[in-house]
């Protein structure tokens, strides 16, 4: 698998080149959020706002009222927790086109509980007018700004930084309200799979691993990568939820309360699917500072957790080991990621 280095940094410069209304605001995390290339290329459209998220968010609302397109860059956790009221009243209520580029979603940082945005989707989904997007690979990162650009109101984006794997073809960019149906191995899936597996963000790579292993055991899996978390209106998703013979699994890098798992539960209830649902994510707990791999295993956000959820739905033992899943080498020899760099 290919790894792409700092895709957002490059994409932001490309995206903004012919859009002179695009301005970038940063709260002292400019290089950390890959806005440094933009700053160096379009200095007159870059605003250093200091460590002051509340003012930054309301200020962005003012800029947007005058026709600018502010792209706020900081860690997801600081956007959502430190400035929630400002986000709601200065931006979301007036439906202003401010884009919130939130980095370090969930447990993708060893920075610990203060830096881990594990409730951001719950907060952002609850705001009227807000569109919520999440990137799962480099192709998503390279197309998410264009997706947001077509939205007239505010958009919250869970961004990825650094060495980002490419899971999806460059020619197949993210589309608003359009889940990616992932095909694994031989055979055509679709309606009537044993299990529907919905994943988002970094968990999609884990989901692919689990789906491949399950197929080897004869279990059919309808796997969808969801990048538009809100609004969750997609006929592909509805069909997958209601046609999965044994049930639905959601795997996400977020609390099981308020994120994709909750959105799917709400949707299934509304549709009257009558299927079992297993929500995998942080089970109403805070995480702590450690490596991504360690945290994904510890909190059950990985492929093994998805396999175990499938076993639960199938009431069967599939004898898939962590070693087997790891051997499905989807991400070989990528450059080492220095996750400690804040």
């Amino acid at each position, binding site marked *: 698998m290919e790894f792409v280095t700092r895709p957002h940094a490059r994409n932001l410069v490309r995206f903004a080149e012919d859009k002179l209304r695009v301005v970038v605001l940063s709260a002292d995390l400019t290089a950390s959020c890959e806005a440094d290339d933009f700053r160096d290329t379009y200095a007159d459209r870059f605003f250093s706002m200091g460590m002051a998220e509340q003012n930054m968010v309301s200020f962005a609302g003012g800029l947007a*009222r005058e026709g600018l397109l502010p792209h706020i860059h900081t860690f997801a956790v600081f956007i959502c927790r430190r400035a929630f009221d400002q986000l709601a009243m200065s931006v979301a209520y007036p439906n202003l086109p401010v884009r919130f580029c939130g980095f370090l979603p969930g447990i993708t940082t060893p920075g610990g509980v203060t830096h881990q945005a594990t409730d951001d989707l719950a907060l952002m989904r609850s705001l009227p007018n807000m569109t919520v997007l999440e990137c799962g690979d480099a192709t998503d990162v390279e197309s998410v700004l264009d997706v947001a650009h077509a939205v007239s109101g505010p958009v919250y984006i869970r961004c990825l930084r650094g060495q980002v794997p490419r899971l999806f073809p460059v020619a197949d960019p993210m589309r608003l309200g359009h889940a990616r149906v992932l095909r694994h191995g031989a055979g055509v899936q679709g309606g009537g799979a044993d299990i529907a597996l919905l994943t988002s963000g970094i968990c999609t790579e884990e989901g692919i691993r689990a789906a491949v292993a399950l197929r080897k055991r004869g279990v059919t899996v309808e796997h969808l990568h969801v990048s538009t978390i809100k609004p969750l209106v997609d006929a592909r998703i509805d069909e997958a939820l209601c046609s999965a013979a044994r049930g639905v699994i959601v795997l996400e890098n977020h609390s099981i309360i308020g994120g994709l798992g909750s959105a799917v539960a709400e949707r299934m209830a509304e549709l009257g699917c009558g299927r079992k649902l297993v929500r995998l994510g942080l089970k109403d707990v805070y995480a702590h500072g450690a490596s991504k791999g360690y945290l994904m295993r510890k909190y059950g956000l990985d492929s093994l957790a998805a396999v175990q959820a499938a076993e639960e739905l199938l009431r069967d033992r599939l004898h898939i080991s962590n070693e087997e899943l790891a051997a499905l080498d989807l991400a070989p020899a990528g450059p080492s990621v220095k996750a400690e760099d804040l």
Partner: protein
Amino acid sequence: MSTADFGKVAGRSARSTGPAGSGGPDCPTGRSPSGTSGALPDWLAEVGRVALGIRRRVLDHTLRNNGGYLSQACSSADALATLYVRLMKLGQSIAPPVPLPFPGVPGLDNPAYVTGFGYNGPHEPGLDRFFFSPVHYALVLYSTLIEVGRMAPDGLAQFNRDGSSVELIGAEHSPGHEVTAGSLAQCLSQASGVAMARKLKGEPGHNWVFMSDGEFQEGQTFEAIAAMAWHKIDNVTVLVDANAQQCDGAMSKVMAIDPIVDRVRAFGGAAVEVDGHDPQAIVAAASAPVPGKPLVIVLKTDPCRGIPLLAARGEKLHYVRFKSAQEEETFRLFLDRMAGG
């Protein structure tokens, strides 16, 4: 707007030190000054008339409803009158004299939505903008709009009625409002964003923000001042009604934050303190901007000014509700004298 203009940061707009006088095309008062003494300039007499009218309307309304933000009218009437009559360069109101019902919230399914900015005239590059932060003073602002001929007196009949846009605590759809500021201290940040964008577009119009002193307990206010100083957002003037009152009572007992002027200066802003009941002092302060810095004019005000009966209530001034028929009658008699005199 031309996108090509972005990136071109205009220098601070040169503001006239002699703002538009009353009766000019930018100050549609709709009335002629009354009670002028020979020595008073016309605009000063007009400020006096408007300020008296504000206090009278708010007292009248408080009596009718047995409740209202009355002390805020007393403390801020002179400053708001000075802003509308003398300081702000606004166009004629483009909003309906009697406000339309609540237009629904902003959103994709409400494309016809507009804010209440139209009462302050159109948005034009050369015109000023007004941002009202302590929106629990909404009744005072509505009364001001009536006194300066921007809203019909009948508009106040909609105040705090279900389905009305003339809300108790104003939001951006309320007359004279253009941002949603009820969660206090967000207005200055929003206004500074507008002001920055206007600088980028090279618009010469100035931006006026009206605040209350309690908002200087919020950290966001000082984040905003620091950012405005850093980005040299000097096309903003902030008038602060320092009436030393807040919801729990006197600020000296809740959490004293004096001296506001020193605090603002420490964060990089320009600040000056004047008597908030002296229109000439307010105009003089506003006419001495400091290049590269936002100007904060701290108005020392009296929450009982013009209605001294209020002083008998001690520190229960934030929201006035009469405690007895006798107290109400005392205020009613006072209103009759105000109306007559």
